[in-house]
């Protein structure tokens, strides 16, 4: 029986993972913590409104005898959060969560950390396929990347100091899926696929279901160490464009790229620096370690893009069908906890 704590429950990943773990009867307890409300319907997950204060987290961990902590908070896109918020989450938050998991009397036996392929960066002299042991050839270029490197290294340090704890780091490539909102889904949703003139970078895309699947795999089976989570198949951006049925349009010039993207920013098309680096140099990850550890990817990169193309084609129809069903947390909580509700099986 497992007792799981999910940090960052309000994030998309936290909610999706909680939904997935709820289906598994071997998981006894699921507790989610987050400063904000969860965004999806959850049945037996208990939600506690708390940030990443390590003292409070540790009390929860001790009191509920949590044996598995899944950290899904990492900010991997500078679209959603400002630089300071991202730093607060990625560096300070990770430090606090690890502090809450450690200690001589801690019941925690497993930590799963959701990291990002931004750890490796994008450089001219990169290898074509990063393996887990490789370090980036140059120091981080962007604030977001250096925060991610710091968080990832902190988790590695925690694993070295706590040999009795199984620590899994999953470094995910760019995600894609119907419910995901990232810089890349925004760019690929445009009528043309933008790029940098004279470059056709290599890309991997992992489907949102595979991200949840890989996290779940790390919870239910023991995977000590670092794993790249990227599906089979490395595409080139022009190939992605043709799979989406759109023209590949190099909007940005090869020189003065940051200046031009500032100008595009005025036209409300934001291309953050880490995305610009990917548009120039691209990146490929070696996924064999995770496959050897028993995880089967449901979709390849190509199938992920094809699935996304179907979502994009349906999007205008969905939008005109009216507002989607929204989860009413108060009603759900009333139905779950109120003594006035008659439950089946009770007299």
């Amino acid at each position, binding site marked *: 029986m497992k007792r799981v704590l999910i940090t960052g429950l309000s994030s998309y990943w936290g909610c999706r993972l909680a939904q997935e773990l709820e289906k598994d009867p071997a998981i006894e307890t699921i507790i989610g913590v987050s400063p904000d409300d969860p965004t999806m319907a959850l049945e037996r997950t208990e939600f506690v409104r708390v940030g990443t204060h390590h003292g409070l987290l540790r009390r929860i961990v001790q009191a509920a005898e949590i044996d598995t902590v899944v950290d899904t908070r990492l900010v991997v896109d500078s679209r959603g959060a400002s630089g300071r918020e991202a730093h607060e989450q990625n560096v300070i938050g990770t430090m606090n969560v690890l502090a809450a998991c450690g200690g001589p009397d801690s019941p925690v036996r497993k930590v799963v950390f959701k990291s990002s392929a931004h750890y490796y960066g994008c450089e*001219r002299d990169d290898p*074509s396929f990063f393996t887990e042991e490789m370090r980036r050839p140059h120091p981080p270029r962007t604030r977001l990347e250096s925060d991610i490197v710091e968080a990832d290294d902190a988790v590695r340090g925690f694993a070295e100091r706590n040999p009795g704890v199984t620590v899994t780091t999953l470094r995910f490539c760019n995600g894609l899926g119907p419910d995901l909102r990232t810089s890349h889904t925004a760019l690929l949703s445009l009528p043309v696929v933008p790029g940098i003139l*004279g*470059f056709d970078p290599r890309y991997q895309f992992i489907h949102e279901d595979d991200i949840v699947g890989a996290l779940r795999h790390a919870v239910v089976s023991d995977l000590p160490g670092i794993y790249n989570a990227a599906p089979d198949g490395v595409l080139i951006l022009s190939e992605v464009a043709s799979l989406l049925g759109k023209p590949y349009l190099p909007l940005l010039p090869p020189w003065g790229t940051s200046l031009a993207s500032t100008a595009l920013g005025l036209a409300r098309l934001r291309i953050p620096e880490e995305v610009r680096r990917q548009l*120039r140099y691209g990146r490929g990850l070696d996924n*064999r370690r995770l496959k050897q550890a028993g995880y089967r990817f449901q979709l*390849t990169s190509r199938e992920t893009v094809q699935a996304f193309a179907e979502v994009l084609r349906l999007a205008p129809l969905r939008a005109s069908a009216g507002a989607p069903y929204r989860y009413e947390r108060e009603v759900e909580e009333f139905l779950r906890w109120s003594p006035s509700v008659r439950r089946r099986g009770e007299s």
Partner: protein
Amino acid sequence: MKQLSAPADHRAYLPAVEPERQVTDWGRSERVEGVMDRTVYDFLYHYWFRVEAEGIEHVPSSGGALLVSNHAGALPPDAAMIAKAIKEEHSRPRPLHMTVEHFFKGYPWLSMLVPKVGGVPAHPANVHRLLYDEEQLVLVFPEGAKGTEKLYKDRYRLRRFGRGGFVEAAMRAKAPIVPIAVVGAEEAQPIFAHLPLRRLTGLLYAPLAPLVYLPAKFFIRFLEPIPTDVYGEEPWLDAGLVQTVAEDVRARIQEELYEMLARRRSAWLG
């Protein structure tokens, strides 16, 4: 951290090939390569350079092998001609992966074209994956840019063979080394001088050279493979042995070049 090369059993987990795709995971495009092959390469190989290839049987028809050649010409035509020779003459043609400078990944347009026609950034991890895991043919030019930027007066004199990294790569992958001697590339696009435009253009070098290839006659000779799996366990740790093998490969190519040049009567007619 602990080990640098992927363990052997990882080979079973290589991504499956998706037949619908026309591009490989390395960014190589069947379509672009096919167009180049039918037009430019075909013309250059048969009519412009009138390539004569010898010893093609020394290129193994299965397993990984590291092809090592001399390098020349401002925009070197030798790599494409070696790949075309294997395609035209070999009984079981296989794609050839050509290692190129990291410069090509950072320069606009070249970064689009070079991977599509079979160029792979010259990173040790890339060479190992191709040779060991994927068991492919890989072509390296150990002289690197030192070979292509040398002036016409220094033609057919091999530069230093790097730091012997190619020998280490072959030893790690237990792949044989196939030395290749190419005659003709030096005359196809001779460099007479270097212009001080390197910083302005961002190019590797800005040579004073003919804009089109001159119709030199090409001879490509594939030499007998040198096994690298006969030196015991982890021979690459012995820096002296690596240097000795590298020097041996270099000497074999240099000797072969002198022999071929002695027999050549004209640079244009052969």
